[in-house]
């Protein structure tokens, strides 16, 4: 079977990871954001305070649903119960999926879009896990795990 290609219904920017710390902070922002807050808008206003997970948790709403799923994931992968490790794994996947001529990721919104694209790519490429019966993107599950770690920090 040919490798499936992404359909063009949604356009996401190609990305290039240049600053691990920047990405990490955005991932923290992303993962700890409330499901009640639209992520792109949130990501646009997040970077300056991204290194303050506790502050994020207090200001971006209730991430409890994501955290519950994240806790379930961490119960199956206790070795990943670490913010640095989780962000590193997600960053690695982002790097793998970046195209050779990709533009640099500068804006938080672009990274948010890149993460959405990555999650979708996971489904297309069968890079998924079974979490309590849910078929979930590996990246998505780690984002929930990150939310759980931060939520319980």
């Amino acid at each position: 079977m040919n490798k499936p290609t992404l359909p063009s219904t949604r356009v996401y920017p190609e990305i290039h990871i240049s600053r691990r710390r920047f990405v990490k902070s955005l991932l923290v922002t992303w993962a700890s954001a409330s499901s009640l807050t639209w992520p792109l808008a949130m990501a646009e206003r997040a970077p300056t305070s991204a290194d303050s997970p506790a502050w994020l948790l207090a200001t971006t709403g209730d991430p409890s649903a994501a955290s519950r799923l994240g806790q379930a994931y961490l119960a199956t992968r206790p070795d990943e119960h670490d913010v640095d490790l989780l962000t590193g794994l997600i960053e690695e996947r982002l790097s793998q999926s970046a195209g050779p001529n990709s533009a640099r990721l500068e804006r938080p919104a672009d990274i948010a879009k890149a993460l959405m694209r990555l999650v979708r790519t996971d489904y297309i490429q069968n890079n998924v896990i079974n979490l309590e019966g849910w078929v979930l993107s590996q990246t998505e599950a780690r984002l929930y795990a990150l939310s759980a770690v931060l939520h319980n920090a």
Partner: protein
Amino acid sequence: MFIDALDLSEQTQLEADLAIIGAGPAGITLARTFAGTPVKVCLLEAGAQAGETEVQALYSGENVGIDYSLTASRLRFFGGTSNHWGGFTRPLDPIDFEQRDWVPYSGWPFTIDELQPYYTEACQLVEVLPDRFDDIPFWEEVTGTTFPQFATGRMRPQFVQYSPPTRFSKRYGSELQQADNIQVVFHANVTHITTAESARTVTGLEISTLNGLKHRVKARQYVLATGGLENARMLLLSNRTNPAGLGNQHDLVGRFFMEHPHLGGCGEIVVAELDRLPKMFRERIKFDGYSANVAYNPTAGFLREQKLLNATFMVGVAAKYRSDTPPDPGNERAVKHTDMLKAARRYLSDVEPQDAEILGVWLGIGCASEQVPNPASRVSLSQERDRLGLQKIRLDWRLTQQDWSSLVEHAHSLALEFGAFEIGRMLLNLEDTASWPDKVNGGNHHMGTTRMHDDPKQGVVDRNSRVHGVDNLYVAGSSVFPTSGAANPTLTLLALTLRLGAHLTKKLS
């Protein structure tokens, strides 16, 4: 014309060019082929024009395999099982006709191309649009929507159409009644197919009525069209010349019984923004008197790559979750669903949660799958006898681990597809390491028991549906399917019947 065997005097002999046993969709369709021609047809119906309890009871039998209702899954009166048909209409896929090295006993004697013209005609019979089962642009235009793109390479949309559903006796009965050359005989239970001493030629049919009358039918050609279970039974019962049964010189009659296992609750899909999923992908749409919806089916490429059996899925809205009403904490399913809808919302919706009255919906999933042809899955004769003194059916329906694993993989594909759509997340209730549950439903699809193959050692009938070794006996219906695919069998059995009609027209002219 219509006559009733109960009204005939004892030992009446009816004569015709063509005797058709069974007035269900296949029998009626075949008889219609000859309406108004010089060919004299005798169409034998065991029941009446409407259902009768004592007649229906003749379908009772013994189950020794997966529990299966022998009486509720078919109807013994004029129009046959079309009288409770749901109307699901779709042809088999081209791959279903192929010999697949991962599917034992697979391969039809011809490709789908052989059936295409008959499929077109069969669509007219059941009042659906021909040639629209894979036509995405057509349905996009009809619905005015752009369909989501299937991105994984595993699945594709196909379009199931719904017949009104056509009740064959109501739709075509008067046509048969008015045809001078067609006799429809009610309450005519065929109890034996008699043959010449060599068993190479059928010489007649023995008829019994429930009030004890006996009659005979004599014809030049005979067609058995009593359904996928009863066709095998009739051949096995006709055992005076060959004790193993007519056409059963290689112990194939009754073997390879196949159903389309239907597994309810194989998964649940949560969707945050229902508008992202076109209506046709979740419910039946109607236009110009027709109706259809999308089936989520595997691609031929994926079936080949992964060596899987065919399957089909459909989804429908089961329940909605309001944003302002938390689920009952005791309702585990609702808690799981709403947690996922909240957690994954950013992937699944453009609507701000506070602006959404509905948090999301969950979609129930219906699935039907192909099973491998399995000689151990079979119809044989019970020691119990019915009111006519005939041995009842003994059904041993079996499924294999291969059937199960294949279905699980396809359900997994459906989960991937909804993730890739950015429309939903799926809870998969099947595990590959498990096996079939004790209770499995079928689709009332009885297939394979008189399978078609050019080699008499591998099939009961040849490519023209003629019983191997018998010059003038044919079988119509889904019992001749060598493999089942995942599509509902009605359209294909009608196409095969029309093809048989063309063959017999030449033979009888």
